[in-house]
C-alpha cells in the first residue's frame, strides 16, 4: 500500500477542485468516489416496529414528567445511593463522619437489601443540583440535592438497592457533572471519553 498523492487526499476532503487533478489522479479519484457510491445503498431493513414494541412493553425511561409524577415515582421506587463525593479532602473527612451516624436519626430507613447514600457536592452559585443515575433510570427530577444554608454545599440522602450504581450530578438542569471525587468511574458508553461516577451500596444489614 503506497501513500496517496496529497492532492488527491485534498480533493477527496473537498479542499481542492478534482477537475484540477492530473489524469492519473483524476482516475483514482473517480474510482474511490464510485466505490463510496456503491457503499451508500441503504439496507432494506427496519427495526422500527421492534424498537417501538420494546418501548411500549417497558415504557420506563428518562422522562422528566411533572412534579407529582416524579414524586410518586420516587416514593414508589426503593431508592438507595451511597455517595462518595466531596470536593475537598476536608469535606470528605467530615462526610465520613456523617456517614457513620446511625440511620435512625430521622434519615431514610433502608430495608435489609438496601443501603443509605449521602450525596454531597460543592456547586457555589448553582440554582439547582440533582442526582441522576442507573438507580432511577437517569430520570431528571427524581432526586434533588438541597443547599438550605446557601453555602454552596448541596446534599441529599437516599435509600438505594444494595449493589453497584452509576450516577452523575445535573447542575442547573443542564450541566451533567461526574462526581470529581467519586472513588471509581466507568465509561458512560456514549463515547467522547465521558465517565459516570460509580458507587457501591452495601446493604444496611452488613454495615457496622
Amino acid at each position, binding site marked *: 500500500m503506497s501513500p496517496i498523492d496529497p492532492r488527491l*487526499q485534498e480533493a477527496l476532503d473537498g479542499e481542492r477542485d478534482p477537475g484540477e487533478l492530473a489524469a492519473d489522479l483524476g482516475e483514482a479519484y473517480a474510482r*474511490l468516489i464510485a*466505490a463510496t457510491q*456503491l457503499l451508500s445503498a441503504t439496507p432494506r431493513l427496519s427495526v422500527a416496529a421492534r424498537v*417501538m414494541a420494546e418501548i411500549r412493553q417497558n415504557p420506563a425511561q428518562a*422522562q422528566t414528567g411533572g412534579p407529582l409524577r416524579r414524586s410518586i415515582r420516587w416514593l414508589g421506587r426503593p431508592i438507595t445511593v451511597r455517595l462518595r463525593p466531596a470536593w475537598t479532602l476536608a469535606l470528605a473527612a467530615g462526610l465520613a463522619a456523617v456517614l457513620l451516624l446511625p440511620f435512625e436519626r430521622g434519615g431514610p430507613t433502608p430495608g435489609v437489601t438496601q443501603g443509605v447514600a449521602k450525596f454531597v457536592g460543592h456547586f457555589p452559585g448553582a440554582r439547582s443540583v440533582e442526582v441522576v443515575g442507573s438507580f432511577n433510570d437517569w430520570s431528571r427530577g427524581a432526586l434533588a440535592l438541597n443547599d438550605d444554608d446557601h453555602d454552596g454545599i448541596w446534599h441529599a440522602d437516599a435509600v438505594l438497592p444494595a449493589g453497584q450504581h452509576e450516577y452523575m450530578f445535573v447542575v442547573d438542569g443542564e450541566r*451533567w457533572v461526574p462526581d470529581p471525587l467519586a472513588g471509581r468511574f466507568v465509561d458512560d458508553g456514549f*463515547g467522547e471519553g465521558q465517565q459516570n461516577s460509580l458507587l457501591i451500596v452495601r446493604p444496611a444489614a452488613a454495615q457496622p
Partner: protein
Amino acid sequence: MVNNGAPDVEVVARVLGGDGEAFGILIRRYEPGLLRFATRMLGNPDAAADAVAESLVRAYRHLAQCRDPERLRSWLYRITGNRCRSHLARRHTNDISLSEAPPLADGSDTWAALERSEQVALVERALAALPAEKREAFVLKHVEGMSYEEMATVTGARIPTLKMRVHRAREALLAALEEVVR
C-alpha cells in the same frame, strides 16, 4: 401530536414529556443511516439490525442524558458506533469475514444488477479488510457524509487522528481496487 417534520429538539422534548410514541419520528428519521452505518461496520445485516435496535432502545431509555438534542444525530451515531465496537469485540476481532458481508443488491434479476452486485461485493471486501477504526472513519466520512467535526463528536477521536484514519483507509481501498483491476 408532534409534527413529523418537527426539529429534533422539539421531538425530544415531547418524548421526555411522556409521549413515547413520538420517539417513532426519530426512528424513522435516523434509522436508514444508522442501519447503513452498522451494516458497513459489521458486514452482516442481521447483526447490524440488532446493534441499531439495541442502540435505539438505549437512546430512548437515556434520552434525558442527551446533553445537546440539537446534535441528536451525532449522539445516535455515537451510541450505535459503541454497540458495533462491542459487537466486534465479542467476536474477538475487528475484521469482518467476507462471508458475512453480502452485497446490498438491487434485487432485480438483471445482468446490470448482477454486475453491480459484484462490484458492491468487491468494494465491501476491501472495506471489510480494513481495521475497524479506519473502516469507521471512512464510512462516516464518505458514506454518511459527515464533516470531520461531527466525526469527532461521534467517535471521540481528534480531528487530525480521524483525517489520518480516512487517508489510510483511502490508500488501502484504492490499493485493493487497483489490485483487482490488474
